[in-house]
């Protein structure tokens, strides 16, 4: 009836591509200005980057001469030549199939742990088998594999060992610390608060340094803990303190009513915590937790200072060779891409997880 209003006269801005461009990019003077600025920025950077990365780059140089000849292109020949050094560090060249399998095992372990179907006690045996297999492959000395001391481990497997085991072991420790910090028992509470505040107050780099240099001084004569293990423990302790605070935030968000309902049903402390409180608290903290896991993943590169050949240090080693001097940017871009892939996966995974929970519970 009267509700039928006349359509505004059609103009070229109403529909189609011009309409879309107008509405999305130039709908107001400030939007137009931002659009122009961004286009200008893109014009300044993208072609130059593309030129360096692709057009002027040298992929296949016999030796280093072709790379020397160019001055405005990437020397990917470095990566072709040195990728195994970057990926596996100083691991014996003919044995590098072993760390390759280890990387694959890590991907499987991560994949399984990320799948909600496995979120039960079956993860414990899966991880034990995974850790034993990884240790067996890396060290060798069993099943006819030659022994490789962990001073020679390096590259991506080492980064994965430090970060994935760091996260995996820090997580349960963090849960206990977060629960302990909210405990009614003064001793437990004091221990947890002291631990968290102490560790959080110190940069990871100095923790690593302490673990590497000072820790052995406290050990009895003749006893020594391996450098890698010390770094691993330092990373776990550091990550646990941060994760504990993140998890505590989630615990605080759970209403008193949830605790009371669980208690009124006769659930004991661990049942209440395990079935009612933690599942909800952890769900809430997925975004900040993934945020700190991403930070931890990149922070493992700090083991450079105690001389471990993780991905970062191995990349550095790839261009100390005088023949390749000057190709540092290429090496950093390469490992940057690897770091990015892992971090991007973590970020996407956390989004998918949140969306999955939201879909299941509300509709």
């Amino acid at each position: 009836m009267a509700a039928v209003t006349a359509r505004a006269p059609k103009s070229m801005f109403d529909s189609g591509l011009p309409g879309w461009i107008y509405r999305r990019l130039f709908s107001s003077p400030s939007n137009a200005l931002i659009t122009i600025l961004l286009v200008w920025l893109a014009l300044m950077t993208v072609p130059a980057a593309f030129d360096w990365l692709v057009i002027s780059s040298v992929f296949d140089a016999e030796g280093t001469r072709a790379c020397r000849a160019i001055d405005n292109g990437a020397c990917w020949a470095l990566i072709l030549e040195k990728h195994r050094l970057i990926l596996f560090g100083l691991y014996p060249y003919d044995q590098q199939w072993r760390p390759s399998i280890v990387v694959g095992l890590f991907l499987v372990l991560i994949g399984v742990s990320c799948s909600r179907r496995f979120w039960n006690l079956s993860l414990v045996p899966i991880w034990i088998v995974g850790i034993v297999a990884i240790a067996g492959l890396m060290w060798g000395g069993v099943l006819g594999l030659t022994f490789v001391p962990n001073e020679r481990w390096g590259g991506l497997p080492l980064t994965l060992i430090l970060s994935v085991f760091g996260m995996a072991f820090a997580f349960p420790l963090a849960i206990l610390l977060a629960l302990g910090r909210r405990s009614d028992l003064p001793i437990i509470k004091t221990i947890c608060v002291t631990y968290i505040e102490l560790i959080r107050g110190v940069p990871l780099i100095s923790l690593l340094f302490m673990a590497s240099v000072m820790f052995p001084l406290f050990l009895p004569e003749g006893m020594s803990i391996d450098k890698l293990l010390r770094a691993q423990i330092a990373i776990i302790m550091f990550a646990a303190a941060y994760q504990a605070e993140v998890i505590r935030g989630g615990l605080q968000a759970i209403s008193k009513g949830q605790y009371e309902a669980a208690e009124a049903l006769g659930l004991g402390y661990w049942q209440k915590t395990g079935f009612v409180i933690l599942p909800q608290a952890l769900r809430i903290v997925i975004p900040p937790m993934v945020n700190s896991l991403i930070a931890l993943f990149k922070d493992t590169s700090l083991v450079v200072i105690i001389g471990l050949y993780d991905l970062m240090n191995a990349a550095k080693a790839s261009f100390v060779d005088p023949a390749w001097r000057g190709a540092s940017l290429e090496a950093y871009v390469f490992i940057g891409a690897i770091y990015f892939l892992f971090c991007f996966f973590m970020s996407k995974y956390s989004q998918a997880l949140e969306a999955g929970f939201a879909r299941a519970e509300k509709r």
Partner: protein
Amino acid sequence: MAGQPMIEMTNVNKWYGDFHVLTDINLKVEKGERIVICGPSGSGKSTMIRCINRLEEHQSGSIVVDGVELANDVKKIEAIRRDVGMVFQHFNLFPHLTVMENLTLAPIWVRKTPKAEAEANAMKYLERVRIPEQAQKYPGQLSGGQQQRVAIARALCMNPKVMLFDEPTSALDPEMVKEVLDVMVTLAQEGGVTMLCVTHEMGFARSVANRVLFMDRGQIVEENTPEEFFHNPQNARTKLFLSQILAH
């Protein structure tokens, strides 16, 4: 046969700091009795019934539930909680679990009932509260009235000897109050379960209560049969309260 009372509170006192919330509460509830507790806001009704399953701790006096005295013994407290169901004003369902999981969690882990049996039992109670078709949904997908009925079923799944209700209908939209009250009336009429219910639903009190308690400033100031309580209140404060609550 008049055995020991189900609940016996003797000279119970409780303070929040300097504030005396419960003053010399004496209450004896027989097995199968149905008691309605009313009184002005802040008079200590919730605090009193929450002392019965130790959600609140009393500072002096004694509370004996089914022959077990409440003290600082975690095992005894958990034993009492197993037999005392509670329904809250804001339902307090577990939002990350389905209705079925909400109902079977405690029977499986506290009572150690086999899962299949717990689920069959849960289905029976869902039918009693008239929402068997919602078993696989999450609480967030249900209406308030449905959630409260799930909460009642959840408490019943533990086969409690006592049911505590803390204003079970006061957070509900008016059109949903009746569906919850109907479930509670049915439960009362079936008998067997001792019920303590904090509510201002006077119709409910009239039809099912054996006794009505009136609380004010942390004391039980009047206690009578519903008939006497509504038609012949003794205490001045009760009269005032009733005139306010029945006026609208």
